[in-house]
């Protein structure tokens, strides 16, 4: 089920870069429990202007994929860094 949720999150895109929250390295962990899916994640910056939109999209994607509500744990430690971007996404950014 974690893989299903993870794949669903690959459909949640950052509308500025067109890269998924997974490939940007924003997803730190997924825990599936009987009544809730907990997603531990971060954002590229605490000032991210699309904070609410991305949170809502993640919640929606989890609910659709797992059929149960999502609990999003937004963390700033460890801080996001560009080193977390997947090689494919990095290639897309640098093309």
């Amino acid at each position, binding site marked *: 089920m974690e893989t299903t949720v993870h794949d669903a999150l690959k459909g949640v895109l950052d509308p500025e870069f067109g890269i998924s929250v997974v490939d940007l390295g924003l997803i730190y962990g997924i825990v599936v429990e009987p009544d809730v899916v*907990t997603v531990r994640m971060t954002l590229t910056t605490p000032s991210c202007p*699309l904070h609410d939109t991305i949170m809502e999209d993640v919640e929606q994607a989890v609910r659709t994929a797992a059929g149960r509500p999502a609990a999003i744990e937004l963390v700033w430690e460890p801080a996001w860094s*560009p080193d977390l971007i997947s090689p494919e996404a990095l290639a897309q950014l640098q093309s």
Partner: protein
Amino acid sequence: MQAHSNHAPPFSLVWRHVAVALVALPAALGLVAWVGPDLVAHPRGALALTAVHLLAIGWMAMVVMGALTQMVPVVLGVPLASHRAIGVSHALTLFGALALVTGFATGFHPAVTAGGTAVAVGLSVFAGVMALTVRRVKPWDLTAFAVAASLGCMVLGAALGALMALNFRFGFWPALYGAMPAHAHLLVVGWLSTLTAGVSYKLLPMFTLAYGHPMRLSRWALALVLGGAVAWLPTLVLPAAWPLPAVLQGLGALLYAWDARQLLARRKKRRLETGLGQATRAIALLPLIVAVGALAALGVPGAAGAYGTLLLLGWVSWTLVGYLYKIVPFLVWVDRFSAPSSAGRRPLAPDLVDTRLARIAGDALTLGTLALALGFGLGLPWLAQLAAGVAGLGAAVAAYDLFMTTQRKGVTPWKPPSTTPSRASSIPSSASASSTSA
């Protein structure tokens, strides 16, 4: 500090500022194109004052007020202290700008006095709302400090301008006739430059994924720019003190240009969209502005006009146009496409603008500005007229493009390239809270 996009103000509150600004920029450049020979012959005459104030208040002040209304709550993560007061400040500033430029153009002094006063009050109300808003930010970072300090310069510069407008009418302080450099630099350097440079330390990393830049030089650069702007104040009573502010702000500008270049070298997103490209062109222009400013300080004929053109139309306007190409699509995207129900039919925010038009606008503005500076510098009225026409055309194209961006409703949704297995996709099915993709 945690930002929320629901702190964003209503679309209409921001757009009413931007819309006025997008009309004022082509109008000001059109005026320059129309009366170019007169401006070259009388750079401090009534028509020059008309064009400069249309540009400074109608374009720059309005776009900065709109941009701050949008960005401060979103980027700094605090709600605006009052939406209503922002509406009042917009109305006062707009009325004041119209009265001021009409007064300068017709020589009707009471309109200059009333307009200058209304603008000063309008900008002060705006600064008050922003000060109350920024006060809630914890902890303050360089950008919050720059916003607050720039607002202080705005109030000082606007107050000095209002005093000059009153003096224009009643003539109670002869020394104020020589206050033009202090007035102009407090606003253009202290307000607009401190603000745009300070905000760039948030926007450039955010839009280009340039993280890990050490901020030591950044703080020095902003301190020098700000110190230079404030150091113009003593020249009101001691005119011979002008070299100090000139040197400070020149050093600050060069240091900022160097520092911003270092920051951008870290970016992960290599290709800059047209808007950010225009903003980086503005940064690259700073060394030339410092050099021409030095020539103006040495009294080289024509250099003052070229310096003012490069500063106002080059550095400030290119930056503002560039950032508008990020702000307006973002506003439209959040307004039309951010709801979860829109998922699946969303464009990317940068795709909301017509990039071909954006490129034409940017290139025309760039070419027109440089040629206009040359026209003023060499005293060639025909070149100044032609260049202002080209720059005005560029501004009009940008205004049209950004206006059309606000009209976009149905657009082709963006789809990611076909996905290949990524490093992050290898999270095992037994992933737990302690497992991270990093």
